[in-house]
């Protein structure tokens, strides 16, 4: 087991490095920070040259990457040309905000998905089953940006109809709020509701279907038949035999979906005007802030890798067959 984890770690690191290199190449290829500058009349070639040097555009790609890499290992991700702060600071701020959303949405999503999926499987062909299937299809077919926008609009309408603000629609917290620690907490929690709801609905749509299918597979499995043949009550069969096996595959799916949840969070943040990784990314791209973009990708990729690794470990804990492998 330990060997398994170590091996995965060892593979992940070169992968991350390779990924950053590819990002670098893509980012460099895809944009030109002084493109706008060039098209302006009256800018002398000398000025352009100076600017080019500033951005490091006059050096070959590999050198620039190596530069970045050697700094990155030491924890220096450069300075953001747009924010004029170290990239690490900017990213750190944004990451806290986004991870709040992603983690809450994932946890709630998993719990709901399991509950709905298992119940739909146990009560196959019931009204609940068909109903949850229909809803799952509906939300699965909704782009995240659409759902977020609709929820936002509905919230605005409700707020208007009721007369005072029931739902928070803008931002991740109330700026300049003077309140106790608890007050801050509830404030942030309140702002979390709509964006989290968006992500939860979209995730649960897919995950609950998967859980249902897995549960059905398990319910029809031979070992469940054996359990029944032993004379256990249906409740015991489901709890001790079916569930234990049915929960395992979901771990893999959630891990694989993590990058999708992250992507969804980016979009959701845009809709609800959060100052998280999403907004940061858009800003960085708009302003062609190379250092920020690269740092962003590094963090995002690392998050995905770490999350997947954690899922692998948990999977090994759940399934004894993997442990001995």
């Amino acid at each position: 087991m330990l060997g398994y984890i170590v091996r995965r770690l060892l593979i992940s690191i070169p992968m991350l490095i390779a990924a950053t290199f590819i990002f670098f190449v893509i980012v460099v290829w895809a944009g030109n920070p002084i493109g706008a500058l060039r098209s302006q009349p009256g800018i002398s070639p000398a000025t352009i040259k100076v600017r080019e040097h500033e951005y490091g555009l006059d050096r070959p790609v590999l050198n620039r990457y190596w530069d970045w890499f050697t700094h990155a290992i030491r924890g220096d991700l450069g300075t953001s040309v747009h924010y004029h702060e170290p990239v690490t600071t900017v990213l750190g701020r944004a990451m806290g905000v986004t991870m709040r959303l992603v983690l809450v949405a994932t946890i709630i999503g998993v719990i709901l998905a399991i509950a709905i999926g298992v119940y739909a499987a146990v009560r196959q062909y019931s009204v609940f089953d068909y109903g949850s299937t229909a809803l799952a299809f509906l939300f699965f077919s909704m782009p995240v940006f659409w759902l977020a926008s609709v929820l936002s609009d509905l919230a605005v309408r409700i707020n208007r109809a009721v007369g005072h603000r029931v739902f928070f629609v803008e931002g991740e917290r109330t700026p300049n709020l003077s309140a106790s620690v608890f007050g801050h907490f509830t404030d942030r929690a309140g702002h979390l509701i709509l964006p989290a709801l968006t992500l939860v609905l979209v995730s649960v749509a897919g995950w609950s279907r998967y859980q249902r299918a897995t549960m059905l597979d398990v319910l029809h499995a031979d070992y469940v038949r054996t359990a029944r043949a032993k004379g256990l009550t249906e409740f015991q069969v489901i709890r001790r035999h079916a569930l234990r096996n049915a929960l395992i595959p979901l771990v893999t799916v959630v891990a694989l979906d993590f990058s999708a949840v992250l992507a969804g969070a980016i979009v959701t943040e845009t809709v609800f005007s959060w100052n998280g990784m999403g907004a940061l990314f858009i800003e960085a791209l708009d302003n062609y802030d190379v250092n920020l973009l690269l740092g962003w990708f590094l963090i995002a990729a690392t998050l995905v890798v770490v999350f997947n690794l954690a899922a692998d470990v948990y999977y090994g804990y759940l399934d004894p067959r993997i442990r001995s492998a």
Partner: protein
Amino acid sequence: MPDPFIDDRASETVAEAGPGMQPRGFDRRDIPGESAFDHTADELTEFGVTARSQTRLVLRRFFRHRAAMVSLVILILMVAAAFLAPHYYKFSYLEQTNSFSSPPSTTHWFGTDTIGIDTYASVMQGATKSIEIGLLVAIFSTLIGVFVGALTGFYRGLVDAGLMRMTDLFLIMPDIAVLAVVANRFRNQSGNWFMIALVITLFAWMYQARLTRAEFLSLRERDYVLAARALGASDRRIIGRHLLPNALGSIIVNATLTVSAAIITEATLSFLGFGITPPDISLGKMVSDGADTASTRWWLFYLPGLFLIVMLLCINFIGDGLRDAFDPTQDRLRA
């Protein structure tokens, strides 16, 4: 807790209602042993059973899937409406009329926007672009993906390992982000929908390649492949005659779902501002533009969005129906 498994009475009343996605009350695995093989298209003669051709079997099962059939009809109608709009609808998405921000009416079916452009015409145009992009991406990513996946799955080796590492890499990233960066390049070119489609394809083929590779990996171990080899069949023949037809099911299903995934991706990109540029229209862009005024001018936001969602729903149902048609032995993941 009551026993959901075996009813107390000999017969059970099956729950009614809901989209009939599976013949009601029947899960193939409820019947132990082989006493109930697939009789659907079998002809019963006095000598036993003879199976009809695979294709007819698949088609018959597809037509049984009610939700898929309804979706197919609706989708065809919507696609026709979108593509034929210039022929039956008075306005074009390019012309500025005199009514500004007017709600839906009999003249302007979906209303107009702030500069007088007819919303219905825009939605139809946006839909055609979405469909074109979706189809383009699906077709090309499938072709490339199947080609690469088949070869790597069949031959394994270094190329396979390298390719798998590469696709692993791209699985690490939030795809929207990378796509946004690449698409940003074409941000200020007008009429860039083709480039956008290409960019999306560049990432979409990898998933299909993985899927095909996985299929081929398992299929190549089957006994009939060994048998074919023993008979002296060439690699090409084995791939073309034995492996590919059996992998076709999952390939087609994935291709269908790629259409909807590509449409969503393009819409999201456009929503964020990195997608389609004028004069082309995207449903995503319309939703993005309409979101700010959704509470006052609902038609600019909800109508394009609903059109998009209904299209996506239909495609997903069809994909589900296809999945069922190709492999009904498992009550598998839907959507």
